[in-house]
C-alpha cells in the first residue's frame, strides 16, 4: 500500500516538474525555420516558388520544398542547407534561375512615368517615389531580386552589376589571377 502511494506521489511530482519545464523553457516559434531563414540570402525574389525567403524556409522545414530552389544562394547555399538539414547535397535547380553576380536595379529617371507599379512590387521598399513623380532605387537597400523589371510599363529599369571599389576589394588568394 505504502509502496503504491509512494509511486503515485513520485508520478505526480514528475508530472508537475515536466509541466513546469515545458512552460518555463518554451521555445517561441520554430527554431529550425529561423535557422534556415538565417541561411537564405533574403533577396525575397520568389524564384523558389514561394512568396519570400521565410515562406520557403517554412516549406523546407516541413519537408515540402527541395533544398536546391534558391538561385541567389547559389551552390554554396545548397551545400549549407544540405548540411543543416542532414540531407544529400544536389546541384542547383537551374530551371528556377542561375546564380548571378550581385546587381542592383537602376531606374532611367528620364524615362520613368511615375506609375508606382515597381514601388508596389519591391519586397524591401527599396524604391522611392510617388504617383506621377519620378521614382528612384535606394541602391544600398536593393537586394537585386529583379521583381521590379517585369511590371514597368516603359521598361526603364535595368540591372547594373555592383562595381568593386577599393573599399570593397578583397585580397585574392595566392595564385589567383589579379584583375
Amino acid at each position, binding site marked *: 500500500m505504502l509502496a503504491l502511494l509512494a509511486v503515485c506521489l513520485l508520478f505526480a511530482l514528475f508530472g508537475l516538474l515536466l509541466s513546469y519545464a515545458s512552460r518555463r523553457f518554451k521555445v517561441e516559434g520554430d527554431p529550425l525555420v529561423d535557422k534556415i531563414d538565417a541561411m537564405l540570402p*533574403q533577396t525575397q525574389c520568389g524564384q523558389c516558388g514561394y512568396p519570400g525567403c521565410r515562406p520557403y524556409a517554412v516549406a523546407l522545414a516541413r519537408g515540402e520544398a527541395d533544398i536546391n530552389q534558391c538561385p541567389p544562394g547559389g551552390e554554396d547555399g545548397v551545400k549549407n542547407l544540405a548540411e543543416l538539414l542532414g540531407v544529400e547535397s544536389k546541384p542547383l535547380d537551374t530551371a528556377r534561375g542561375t546564380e548571378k553576380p550581385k546587381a542592383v536595379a537602376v531606374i532611367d529617371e528620364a524615362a520613368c512615368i511615375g506609375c508606382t507599379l515597381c514601388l508596389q512590387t519591391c519586397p524591401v521598399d527599396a524604391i522611392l517615389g510617388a504617383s506621377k513623380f519620378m521614382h528612384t532605387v535606394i541602391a544600398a537597400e536593393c537586394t537585386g531580386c529583379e521583381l521590379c523589371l517585369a511590371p514597368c510599363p516603359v521598361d526603364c529599369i535595368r540591372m547594373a552589376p555592383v562595381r568593386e571599389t577599393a573599399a570593397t576589394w*578583397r585580397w585574392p588568394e595566392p595564385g589567383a589571377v589579379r584583375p
Partner: protein
Amino acid sequence: MSFPKLWSFHGGLRLDGHKQESTRLPLRAARLPERLVFPLLRRDGRLAAPGAKPGDRVLKGQLIAGGDERLDPPIHASTSGRVRSIEELPLPHPSGLAGPCLVIEADGEDAAVEIEGLANYREHPPEELLRRVHQAGIVGLGGAAFPTAVKLAPAGRRIDTLIVNGAECEPYITCDDSLLRHRADEVLQGAELLRHILHAERCLLAIESDMPEALTTAERALREGGFDRIAVVPVPAIYPTGGEKQLIRVLTGREVPARGLPADVGVVCHNVGTVAAAYRAVVLGETLTSRIVTVTGRGVRQPQNLEVRLGTAIADLVAQCGGYTDEAERLILGGPLMGFALPSDELPIVKSAHCVLVAGRGELAGSRPAQPCIRCGACAEVCPAQLLPQQLYWYSRSDQLERVLDHRLFDCIECGCCDVVCPSHIPLVQYFRAAKGKAIAKQREREQADRARRRFEARQARKAEEARERAEAARRKKENLEKSAVPEIRQAIERARRKRAEKTDQHATSDTPGRS
C-alpha cells in the same frame, strides 16, 4: 626619468636592416609639385564630401574634403592653387583600382591660410586641443592612418603611460629615424602635449638600438628641453618590435587583450611622426599637409628621405632621387614585409605612405615558387602574435572559415615573419589576408541579408495593417449608414435589401423545377 627594465615578446626576427642606404643623405624638402591628387575614398568605403569645387582657388592648409566625422579627419590642400577637377584616378591601394580624387593645379606661390596656434595649450581644455588635432587632419603616420584624436580620447579608461613609437623595425624604412635626427625637439614637444591631453603620468619614447644617431639626438633634446616626465628607451632591433602590441609588451610587460585596445591596459601608443604633427597642429596652427617619405631600394639612384607634400606623384619623388637605376624591378609602397606592389608610379602620396621602395633585381625574396607545407613549425616559432600559421594556412586553403576564425585569424598582424622563415616559400600572409577578406565579406553579406529581412518583414506588417484598416473602415462606413437618421438613406437600404431578397427567391423558385 629613468627606465630600468624591458620585457620581450614571443617570436620575431633579426632582419638585415638596410637602413644606411637612405640615411646617408640628410632630410630635405621635396620640390613643390605642379599637380596634386587627393583621393576622396574614406576608410569606411564612403566618399569624403569635397569642400571645394573645380575652379576654386585654394590655399595651403585649406580644407578640401571631409569635416566633422570623428573617424575621418579632413584633408587639406598641401599648397596653393586651383582645383582642376574631381575625377576617377588610380589609387595607391593594393587593388590598383581607381576612385574619385580631387586634383589641384599648384600656382607655385605656396600661400597658406593663417591659423593661430595655441602656444599656451595648457590653459585650454583637452576637448579644444582634441578638436584642433582632428581639424588639422592628423592621423597615424606610422602606416595605419588611424585618426589620432580618437586614440587620444579613450572614453572612461585611465591612461598611465603614453608610448611614442620610434621603433621603426621594418627594413629599409627610415622616415622616423630621420625625423628624430633632425627634429627630435618637435617629437618631444608633441609627446609632452599628448601626455597633457591624456593626463598620463609618464611618456616613453622607444627608439631601436640600431638607430644610434636618433638615440643621441633624442637624448640630447631631452636633456636640453628638461622634459622630466619623458624617458628615451632604446629597444632591441627585433622585427616587429614597432608593432603596437609588441612594443607595449616590451616596454610595460602588459598584454593587450585580443580584439582589445591598448587603452584597456592603460596605454596609448602613437608614432613619432604623428606626435610631431600633433605638436605642429596645436602649437603652430599647421594642418597636416606634408609628411616624411623614405625613397629607397637598389632601384633608385640616390635613396633618401624627403619631406613630401601630400598628393605628390611617386614618379616625381623618384625623379628627385636621381631616377630609376637599370636594376629597378618592383615598385612597393611601404616596406618589404608589409608593403604592397604598385602597378604604376603615377600614384599620389597619401597620409599613410611612409616608404617608396624600388626593389632591384633579386633584392626581395617572395617570387619563388611555393612548395608544399612540410609542417616544420618554423612559422609558429617566429609568430609575434603566438598563432599557428601552418594551421591557419591549412584551414584558409581548404576554405574552412569557421576553423580559421577559431584559430584567431584576426589576431594576425600580417607582419610577414612566417613568410620569411617558411622553407617552402609559401606566401602565408597573403592566404591570411584573403581569408580575412572572405570572413569580412561574409559578415557584410549576413548584415545586408538581415537588413533585407527586417525591411521585408516591416513591409509585410505594414501591408497587413493597411488591409486591416481598410476592412475596418469599410465596416464602420456600413454601420454608420445603417444607423443613419436621414430617411432617404434608410429607404435606399431597405429597397436594396428587398431587391436582394426577391432575387434569392426567384433563384430558389427557378432552381426548383430544374432539379425535379
